[in-house]
């Protein structure tokens, strides 16, 4: 088991390394470069000055050399400055990573709290009115454009009913925990509704598959209570594929968080990446993307480990 964890950690680090190069190359292909931005700020720069600056900052080097320079600086803890925030990149990103984890974590827990009971209830009474309703709701959930849903929530709860703020992290002059939670409600609900439909469908399908197995019939024949059969026989086995899906869904959740954060002005990773890309903040975009990638890869790793805990049939040699 330990060697498996080490092996997966090495694998994850390797993927992250490859991704860092791909992302570096992609950022290099964004319009303009730092010299262009300097020219914008100071139109008096001559072509000679530009060439000299390019040489000074190493922008005339080939891609691999530039990447190597970035990497050697990065392992020494120098990730560069953010142009938009005039701060070291990591000083910008750490608090925002925290904000995203709060948002994603709340949405994840809320999705589970909705999807598990709904999926199980639907699976135990196939073709009933309840099952049809859950199914229809899940279909609607996976088909609704997440940003539109967020806008509708704002129209209803912020503009019309005025129950919750339309965006931001805190109200000016306040900023206590309660105020922050108040601002968290709509983003979490929007992100949850955007993802929960898919999870319900997986829980339902997986539970139905488990309920078809022979050991369920055996358990029932033994005279176990319905509840016991459902929870300790069916659910435990049904959860194994669900965990994989939840892990794969983490990438989608990070994607969804980008939309939610942008619409609600929640200062998280997704909004930061978006602002950085639009604002030509190359250093920030690069590290923001790497953070987002690392976050999803880590979630995948955790899911693989949870696998072993849930399914004793899987051994790791």
């Amino acid at each position, binding site marked *: 088991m330990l060697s498996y964890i080490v092996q997966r950690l090495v694998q994850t680090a390797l*993927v992250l390394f490859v*991704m860092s190069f791909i*992302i570096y190359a*992609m*950022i*290099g*292909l*964004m*319009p*303009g470069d730092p010299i262009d931005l300097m020219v914008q700020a100071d139109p008096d720069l001559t072509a000679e000055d530009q060439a000299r600056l390019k040489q000074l900052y190493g922008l005339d080097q080939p891609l691999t050399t530039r990447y190597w320079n970035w990497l050697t600086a990065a392992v020494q803890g120098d990730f560069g400055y953010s142009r938009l925030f005039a701060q070291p990149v990591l000083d910008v990103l750490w608090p925002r990573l925290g904000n995203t984890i709060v948002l994603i974590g709340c949405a994840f827990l809320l999705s589970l709290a909705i999807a598990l009971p709904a999926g199980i209830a639907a699976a135990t009474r*196939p*073709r009933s009115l309840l099952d049809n309703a859950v199914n229809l709701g899940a*279909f*609607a959930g*996976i*088909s*609704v*454009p*997440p*940003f*539109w*849903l967020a*806008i*509708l929530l*704002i*129209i209803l709860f912020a*503009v019309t009913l005025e129950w919750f703020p339309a965006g931001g992290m805190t109200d000016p002059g306040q900023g206590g925990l309660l105020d922050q939670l108040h601002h968290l409600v709509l983003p979490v609900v929007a992100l949850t509704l955007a993802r929960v439909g898919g999870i319900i469908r997986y829980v339902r399908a997986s539970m*139905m598959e488990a309920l*078809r197995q022979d050991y369920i019939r055996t358990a029932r024949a033994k005279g176990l209570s319905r509840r016991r059969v459902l929870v300790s026989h069916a659910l435990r086995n049904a959860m194994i594929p669900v965990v994989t899906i939840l*892990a*794969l869904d*983490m*990438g*989608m959740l*990070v*994607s*969804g968080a*980008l*939309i939610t954060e*942008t*619409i609600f002005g929640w200062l998280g*990773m*997704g909004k930061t*990446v*978006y602002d950085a*890309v*639009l604002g030509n903040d190359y250093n920030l*975009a690069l590290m*923001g*993307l790497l953070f*987002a*990638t690392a*976050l*999803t*890869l880590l979630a*995948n790793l955790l899911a693989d480990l949870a696998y072993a805990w849930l399914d004793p049939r899987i051994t790791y040699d």
Partner: protein
Amino acid sequence: MTERDPTADTAGELRAGAARALEASATPARLLWRRFRGHHLALGSLIVLVVLAALSFAAPVIEAWTGLSATRVDLMARNAAPTLAHPLGTDELGRDLLIRLLYGGRVSLTVGLVAAVISAIIGTVVGIAAGYYGGRFDAALMRFTDGVIALPLLPLLIVLAAIDFTKLGLPEGLMTSESASLYRMILLVSLVGWTTVARLVRGATLSLKTREFVTAARALGAGNARIMWVHLLPNVASPIIVSTTLSIGNIILLESVLSFLGLGIQPPMASWGNMLTNAQELIYSNPMLAVWPGLLIFVTVIAFNFLGDGLQDALDPRSGLQR
């Protein structure tokens, strides 16, 4: 790009699938149609999609007939309420909302259909090759596919959407033409959309390639390419059709998100996504501007999902029994 009826593919493939069923097991094509027809939601969705597509692709004709214009700015009639002249009112620049919605549908449906077909082709090639050749080749391709699935796609797509293609040596004329954002969108979405089909096809190929008819074909001297093209591909057609139909909805969602964020289809070309870009600022003055495009995306995507679901039941009767 040629425009075409978006249902042509599905209906054509449905007929082809039915014809195969007829040859293979003497199951009448009617049986397939009857199974599909029994799925009321899917049938209704098909009708909705046909109507929506017909109206969208006829937008220039409707524009000419009614004298409404999708591009004429009328600052005297901004944010007008619905009237006989403007059935759904006008937007913040006084353009007729209904015609703009139809033009937007044309773009969104085109992106969805074309990118779904390209994704399906990439996914099928990757899936059949991985499943058929197996071994290290398979392992490498599937690790790559898993990697793409696990990535946070939207943040990466945002950077890809911002890429300056002239830095890659593409001619400037191509990238600045009016339809450039359309081509770019189709390319981007196809790049990430092929993974589901690849995994499904690989799984099906793995089990099919050990069957007797493949061994028989090989004994008769068929080469690898012929076995994959003639013997394997027709047998994996149903999962491809179903997952392609389902992916159209996802692609339309993805297109709308990127366009909403200002990185997809660029104005003045309308798409359902970019019609919502300004909606957030206008929710106080004209909330209906935010409602209509989103509602159309929602209806279209849910219709494609119901259609895919119905096709799955019709093409694979066993899945129906298990439900």
